[in-house]
């Protein structure tokens, strides 16, 4: 059964000095897109941080393709095939667009430091292949970004920064993609474009599982196959969007009942 599921968590929890941000959370994701919803402070981002290894869970297990990830560092988890984006668009401002994208390929590139120094042709080949891949990934969203590849991130508009961040996360072809509020700060039209972009990833044919955190229910309803609702660190509802949106607990949680 485990083999079918991409990621599975068993009673995962984490404490911050007495505050239980996530508590006994059972979660599964297969070859699908799961929307993670819940009011502010319900532990959604913390849950992603646990999966991506930034926080160590204080209890329970995180299992990815039958392998326990609890003791892994973030970089090891990325190498296993879990990549993520951040809520506050975290690109490296001191790097150009293409360098940011190349960062996403870091763990699949093989050049060692001595090859980088002594075997220039090999290193250049790999970089050039990488650049092609990155351009391929970003032009799915917006081909115009390719023309601005050698500009600093600070000159790029927000929607394109989000696209670059998502492209950075998928360019290394992960098995599981974690999107943390991809439409935060975008206007209505941009949100619509973002939904299309994420749909493109979902339907790209690479078997990729996506967990998406969103406050905008229109995004969730269009993208996700299944929805999980968290409140105060616990799972309160699970199912299709219609089921969850009609669930009493969910309404209570959002209205603060």
């Amino acid at each position, binding site marked *: 059964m485990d083999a079918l599921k991409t990621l599975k968590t068993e009673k995962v929890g984490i404490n*911050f*000095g007495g505050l239980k941000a996530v508590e006994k959370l059972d979660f599964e994701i297969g070859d699908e897109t799961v929307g993670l919803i819940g009011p502010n402070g319900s532990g959604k981002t913390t849950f992603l*941080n646990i999966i991506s290894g*930034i*926080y160590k869970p204080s209890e329970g297990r995180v299992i990815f393709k039958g392998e326990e990830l609890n003791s892994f560092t973030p970089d090891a988890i990325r190498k296993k095939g879990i990549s993520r984006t951040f809520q506050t668009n975290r690109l490296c401002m001191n790097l150009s667009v293409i360098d940011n994208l190349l960062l996403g390929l870091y763990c699949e590139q093989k050049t060692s430091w001595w090859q980088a120094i002594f075997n220039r042709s090999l290193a250049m080949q790999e970089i050039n292949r990488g650049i092609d891949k990155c351009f391929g990934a970003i032009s799915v969203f917006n081909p115009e970004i390719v023309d601005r590849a050698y500009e600093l991130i600070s000159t790029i508009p927000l929607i394109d920064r989000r696209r670059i961040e998502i492209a950075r996360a998928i360019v290394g072809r992960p098995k599981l993609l974690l999107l943390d509020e991809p439409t935060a700060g975008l206007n209505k039209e941009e949100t619509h474009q973002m939904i299309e972009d994420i749909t493109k990833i979902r339907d790209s044919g690479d078997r990729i599982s996506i967990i998406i955190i969103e406050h905008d229910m229109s995004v969730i309803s269009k993208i996700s196959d299944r929805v999980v609702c968290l409140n105060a660190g616990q799972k309160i509802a699970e199912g299709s969007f219609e089921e969850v949106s009609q669930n009493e607990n969910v309404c209570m949680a959002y209205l603060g009942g």
Partner: protein
Amino acid sequence: MGSLILSQVFNAIMLACTLALIGIGFSLFFGVMDIVVFCLGDIAIASAFCILGITSLTGVYAALNGIFPMVVSNIILVICGGVFGAILVTVMYHTVVAPFEGKNINASLLSTVAAGYVIRELIGIFYPGGRDPQNFPNLLPTGYLFNNTMLSWRNIIIVGTTVLVLMLLYWFVNRTKAGISIQALSQNKEASIMIGIDWHKMVIVTFLIGGFLLGIAGFLTASYASTLRFDTGSMYGLLGFSVAVVGGLGSIYGALAGSLVIAFVEVFVTGFIPGGAAYSGVAGFLIVVLFIIFRPEGIIGEKSISKV
């Protein structure tokens, strides 16, 4: 053996007294501004040079002694040192700290280290014979209490001054509005500013008080060593920062605890390990490095949860 240990303990306390004040200086500035001002040691030594300068101006010193009794004129001298320290720190704030506020910490780090060098070299160049070791005048009374060689008046006054300054500082931090504001700032800057604490004013107050502390610290350490060298500032500052880190950066009581730890380690390495005198500095710094690796929050500091 017992008296040896006792005398070493006393030595360690003396050393801790000379370190505590500068450590508190580091903690105060870090608490309020989140910036480590690396040139504090040099400022302390410069203040000591200021006192030395006044005493070597024969006319002034004689006039002072003519007007006031010896004790009063010496206290005035020490206060002069403190005021000089306060002025110097304020100047440093405006030239090498304030321009880098809110930027990458590396800039303020480098600029304050460089400022330390500038102060040191200025003393070396412009103080007459500044590059040679200077005899620090014996402003404190000589002689011994109970004819005990450990309890010289000088040592007792150094410890006494430190305790007095600490008590004043305690009173200031816990009983005055400015002191409570400073405490609030070092615990939560945003919230404090939000409830109406004037941050810029508090920074100036902190710098004045910290500078005054440094002046006194410089005087104490120079009196303790009885000699003054222009280039001891970097070492002194480094020890002061170490003390603050070992105790927990930003905590005043931590600096006190840290100074005791560092002083005891250094004195005991010097006293009980054969040939250890040369390595006392090494031992002290090793302790700091170990603290940074295994307990970066220090003795008193609380472990903070880093927010991602």
